[in-house]
């Protein structure tokens, strides 16, 4: 058994296999308990993450190349159509922006009158999604911004339409983020129309959020916009989250059955924006 080290020839048992397995299984269980209950293993994950990052880059390369080739070979008239569409969109956005700056000025004046603390603008930076979690029961993504870009745990991510999720783990140059549709994600929101505050939970489906704590007599109806309330501290206030889809009032239950559709297209985005909220910037 000792003499021969060939893999094939010796039909004998592998020495010390059982004890090695026992040790490794034990280590795995200790790791899982530590990871699940206390979340002490951020550093370990970060270290191993640096091994995974090159793999993700390589896996992503063909998709990037395809995207590049596709945009490079788009027909000229298609490009012109796209250009026209973008121009029209820009005009519209600019028009809205003009109104916004007027409103912002007015808001500042009113806040002055009320002697309220002035709202400060948040800082935003674009990051790209480089990987999407394979497990449908954990909606997480990996983005190409990490500690070197000053990303931090709990940082909010948005796209052009609304809130996407938050960073749960910052690596050196990448971070892992949980989407708002993740079953274990909860987000403090308020109804834009009425100011009613509640919680939006992820459901595991990209197109649906649950609002479990809305009383039967609450003023809420399909089409209401939900925005972040800023309570809880993780998300800055005022970003759109979802639009109420169904309101099902059940007479004998204390709470109505309310679902909402996320404003951001969670499973289609390639780019996300990281928000450094004003309060977070002030801390630094």
């Amino acid at each position, binding site marked *: 058994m000792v003499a021969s*080290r*060939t*893999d*094939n020839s010796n*039909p004998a048992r*592998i020495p010390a*296999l059982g004890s*090695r*397995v026992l040790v*490794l*299984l034990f*280590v*795995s*269980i*200790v*790791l*899982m308990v*530590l*990871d*699940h209950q206390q979340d002490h*293993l951020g550093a*370990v*994950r970060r270290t*191993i*993450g640096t*091994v*995974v990052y090159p*793999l*993700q880059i*390589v*896996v992503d390369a063909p*998709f990037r190349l395809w995207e590049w080739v596709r945009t490079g070979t788009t027909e000229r008239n298609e490009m012109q159509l796209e250009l026209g569409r973008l121009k029209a969109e820009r005009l519209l956005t600019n028009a809205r922006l003009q109104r916004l700056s007027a409103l912002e000025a007015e808001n500042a004046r009113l806040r002055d009158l009320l002697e309220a603390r002035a709202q400060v603008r948040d800082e935003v930076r674009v990051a790209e999604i480089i*990987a*999407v*979690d*394979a*497990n*449908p*029961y*954990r909606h*997480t993504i990996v983005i190409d911004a990490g500690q070197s870009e000053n990303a931090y745990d709990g940082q909010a991510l948005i796209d052009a339409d609304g809130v996407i999720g938050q960073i749960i*783990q910052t690596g050196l140059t990448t971070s*892992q983020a949980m989407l708002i549709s993740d*079953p274990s994600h909860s987000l403090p929101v308020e109804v834009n129309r009425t100011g009613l505050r509640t919680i939006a939970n992820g459901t*595991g489906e*990209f197109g649906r959020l649950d609002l479990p704590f809305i009383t039967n007599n609450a003023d809420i109806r399909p089409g209401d916009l939900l925005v972040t309330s800023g309570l809880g501290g993780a998300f800055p206030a005022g970003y759109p989250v979802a639009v109420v889809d169904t309101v099902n009032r059940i007479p004998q239950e204390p709470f109505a059955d309310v679902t909402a559709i996320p404003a951001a297209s969670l*499973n289609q985005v390639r780019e996300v924006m990281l928000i450094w909220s004003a309060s977070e910037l002030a801390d630094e």
Partner: protein
Amino acid sequence: MSRAGVAGRTPVIVSIVVSLMLMIVPLPDWAEPFRPDWVALVLIYWAMMMPRTWSVGIAWLVGIILDVAQGTILGQHALALCFIVFVTVRLHLLIRVFPMQQLTATVFAILALYQFILFWINGAAGVDVDAVSYWGPVITGTLFWPVVATLLRGVRLRVQHGL
């Protein structure tokens, strides 16, 4: 260890790295629950054919990397891979002389055991689970086994005999 020295390890490591990459390739939503467990298939093959060089240690290491890549509980895939590779190594003399059909049936059982361990840990950790994502990878993994085994056989013959 005729030719399976340091040089002989490279192709095996490459096959494991490729299987890891296949685990993180983005798939469309509908296909996600049916992603075969490439890493498990590759590790089962090497544990069956070269159990002295590739057994529980490498399985555990690859499992930890997979945990980080997929954002699962740290140690979940490590434990599951380690255990099924242990089972494979214990059975390797028996199963590696099986004809392909019988071997595929065995791999089906091993993959089912693998998913069972993953689901058990998910359940203990309070992660929601359902039947499609349990049986999806088991079935597609079994279907892909003959392909993986044939490809890796080519690699193995090259490693062992320098063909």
